[in-house]
């Protein structure tokens, strides 16, 4: 399905820069409301740090709950950027063009948000320094570099740094464009950020090579981040349901499923809010939905393997856990919602082209996926800890407290708030990609038919 539009450069500039050169009327109220929500969230976090983790529902044996689930969730969402931007760039998928910037942004902001959760989960965040830095040379106490507590921040920090660079390199031509269209302090800001961008052949070449190199370099980091997060669980044989060799790729493909769905949600919002109908078209949703069908089905395969090999061992505690997860209240309800929302409802719907090209349907189904994927993480992390085991004298069901729910909601407000702030200063759809696409698309005559064609290096 191809819906090409001939869009000249002035039109592209005017429409795609409408967030920076003008302020949409809805922008200020939206930012104000989100800002208030963010401040409330920060106050709750402050209060929790002041009072201690007793205000949460956490306790023995469920010491990892909503915070760690949400941490894994946001790390998962962060996989959107590299999946969409780097992989599609390397494979030269033409439909990627309007999607890349939003995906890269989502990566950066969701990683920033994810990092908050282990910090606040520690109860006394300043103590994190003890885990990472050698703090007592005299007594020879050093951090254990093999610990996930070291590897997680290293992996996520590297991913965040790389993603930010990736975003910035792709932003350079648009910064040059903005510099030439602004005055006053904004002009000064863009002048500094544009790094002298003039768009000469040398700069284009360097920007292109830089983008490709960063894409290739980011791929292993992208895979390693969620793998390391998964090994936080998988290398622990003492908790049923965690010690599985499949966790690393299972987490990664789940992250891609969830991240790409989040991009779809964001694309629909961008189209509605900024009225970018000419740039974000049904064909893009169609392509993303096709990608999601493949990814979701792969993810389902991994889910099946994870489950079948959990039962394969025929160990009584493992079977008891799975029974609890799937057949005992309230876990069974969560399990059903998880399965329906992560796969059973959206994927069969996406098989229909009418759904794939219906933006409202894509918006709601992509939200469903992320509801399901959040529940998946919750069902992996909590039941294994919550199951009553022999010789456990403190045992009770885990119920997230209002404090935890508030911080959970805060994370969504925070990411949206950052996105809106970004949109005020930088274009959410890369202008140069759109213009490049216009130049590369042509028609080729085959017999009597004119077929859409694309200029390519010789295949």
């Amino acid at each position: 399905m191809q819906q090409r539009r001939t869009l000249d450069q002035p039109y592209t500039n005017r429409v795609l820069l409408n967030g920076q050169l003008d302020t949409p009327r809805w922008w200020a109220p939206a930012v104000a409301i989100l800002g208030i929500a963010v401040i409330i969230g920060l106050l709750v976090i402050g209060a929790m740090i002041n009072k201690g983790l007793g205000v949460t529902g956490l306790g023995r044996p469920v010491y990892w709950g909503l915070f760690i689930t949400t941490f894994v969730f946001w790390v998962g969402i962060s996989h959107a950027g590299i999946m969409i931007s780097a992989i599609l760039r390397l494979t030269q998928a033409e439909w990627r063009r309007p999607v890349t910037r939003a995906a890269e942004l989502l990566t950066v902001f969701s990683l920033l948000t994810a990092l908050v959760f282990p910090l606040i989960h520690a109860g006394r965040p300043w103590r994190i320094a003890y885990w990472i830095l050698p703090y007592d040379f005299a007594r020879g106490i050093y951090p254990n570099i093999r610990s996930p507590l070291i590897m997680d921040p290293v992996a996520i920090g590297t991913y965040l740094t790389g993603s930010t660079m990736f975003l910035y390199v792709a932003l350079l031509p648009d910064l040059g464009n903005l510099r030439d269209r602004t005055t006053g302090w904004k002009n000064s800001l863009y002048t500094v950020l544009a790094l002298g961008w003039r768009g000469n052949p040398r700069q284009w070449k360097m920007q292109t090579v830089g983008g490709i190199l960063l894409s290739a370099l980011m791929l292993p980091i992208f895979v390693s981040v969620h793998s390391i997060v998964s090994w936080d669980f998988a290398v622990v044989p003492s908790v049923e349901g965690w010690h599985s060799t499949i966790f690393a790729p299972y987490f990664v493909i789940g992250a891609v499923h969830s991240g790409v769905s989040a991009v779809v949600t964001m694309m629909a919002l961008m189209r509605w809010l900024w009225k970018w109908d000419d740039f974000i078209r049904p064909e893009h949703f169609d392509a993303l939905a096709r990608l999601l069908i493949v990814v979701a089905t792969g993810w389902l395969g991994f889910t099946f393997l994870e489950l079948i090999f959990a039962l394969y061992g025929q160990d009584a505690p493992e079977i008891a856990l799975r029974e609890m997860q799937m057949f005992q209240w309230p876990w069974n309800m969560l399990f059903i919602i998880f399965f329906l929302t992560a796969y059973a409802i959206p994927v069969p719907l996406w098989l229909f082209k009418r759904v794939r090209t219906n933006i409202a349907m894509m918006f709601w189904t992509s939200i469903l996926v992320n509801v399901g994927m959040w529940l998946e993480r919750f069902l992996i992390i909590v039941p294994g800890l919550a199951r009553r085991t022999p010789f456990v004298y403190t045992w009770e069901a885990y119920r997230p407290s209002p404090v935890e729910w508030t911080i959970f909601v805060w994370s969504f407000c925070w990411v949206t708030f950052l996105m809106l702030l970004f949109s005020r200063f930088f274009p959410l759809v890369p202008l140069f990609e759109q213009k490049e696409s216009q130049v590369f698309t042509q028609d080729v005559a085959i017999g009597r038919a004119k077929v859409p064609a694309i200029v390519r290096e010789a295949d």
Partner: protein
Amino acid sequence: MASEAVTIGHVAEHAEHAGLPPQIAADVIARELVATTSGASKRFKTIAWTLGLLAIVGIAALVMKWIDQGDDSTRWGYIAALVSFLLSVTGGAPMVAMAPVFAKANWVRPVTRIAAIFSFAGIATIITLIPLVLLLPPLVTEGARRRTIWFEAPNYSPHVWSTLALVLLLLTGIMLFYSAAIPDFAAMRDHSTGWRQRIGKKFARGWVGTDVQWRTLRMRIGMFGTFYFLILVFVNFLITTDFGQSLVPGWRDAIFPMYHTVSSFQGGVAGVVIALWVARRYMHLEKYVHLDAFWSLGRLLFALTLLWIYFFYSSFIVFWYGRSENDIATLELQIKGPMLYAFVAAIVLIWFVPWWILIWNRVRRSVNGMAIGASVILVGLLLDRMRIFVPAWSVPPEQIHEKWLRTIPDTIFPDLFDALITVGMISLAALIIMLMTRVLPAVSVWQVQEFNLIAKPIKYIRGHASLVAKPD
């Protein structure tokens, strides 16, 4: 403009070296490619006879091994490894033809036929599997049910379903081959003589290239390709669990079926690279099999090599750090003693060496460099299969119901039968592929013709590029 334009301008410099698609008349393509099926050279005949003799010796050795060691399943680990190896290469190769087609990649066009031909070599896999099915213990022995994926299923479920799945894979692979070959059978009908023309007429089924026929052809390829992929994953799942994991008490590795599938794709790509290298060199197909095909296969092989190490490491680290009794026993079985050498060699040959070879663009863009890289991977793959399946089959049947492996069995070393069977069955697979290139051209006629139609070399800024049509 801008970024990719620069890339294209840059790439165009060596595009001349890589060669833009030659604009050859469709009729010439058909005649030249059909002509490659006839008039086998003396070298071809010599190699075919040699492979045929080795295959006969291999089958005879298989029968003799059955007579001599048919009552001792612990001696059949190398044959299980061979089945896994053959399944990987012959089963994985057709996917190489399919996956890029789904992604509408054009580089794959000269590769599709030779990749699809590998399906027929699955016959060698099935022949080798027969004694293993007979030796596989039932689910329940002496009242004890061993751990399998079959849980409460009837006693001989693994035997029946694994065999049926493998046969189904073979049949689907052949159907996939045939679906994509109908226009070429028509080309055989129109451009050859004798038995080839008769075969072409029979199998072309009245193909004249109407719109409906083309639509049906594409639909069939898509349908069989998807079906083939699903069956391939399923077969890998069954073979790895029924003929591997379930024979070792306590070995529980959820990623192993996917690991096997990924290395199957890797083996398939490596096999296709070697077959393409041979076809290009000895059937003089340089005009149709360009460097771009090797370049793209190189990138695919490189990606699969990285994916292999990722899957391998994901499994290994969980056993290594888990340190439960199961984990320790499984690791001791698979990577201790003499198997340590196979383990290290497999990692070096499947990952380390190819990684260092294929990371260089210059190697990926060279026909011989790619062939060397692919050969190294295939040797490593065979060793990897040995270090997995030989220890698994070495566990005595009376121990397989235990919770975990309490005593590590001695390593079984290969005997003459194993060597002859391995060489013989690989020769049989190679022979089948060779003979199939006598029936149909090794490069798909219609794929090349279509590419000529949709890709036009154009001048772009100061260089050259292709204008590639992207029909819906």
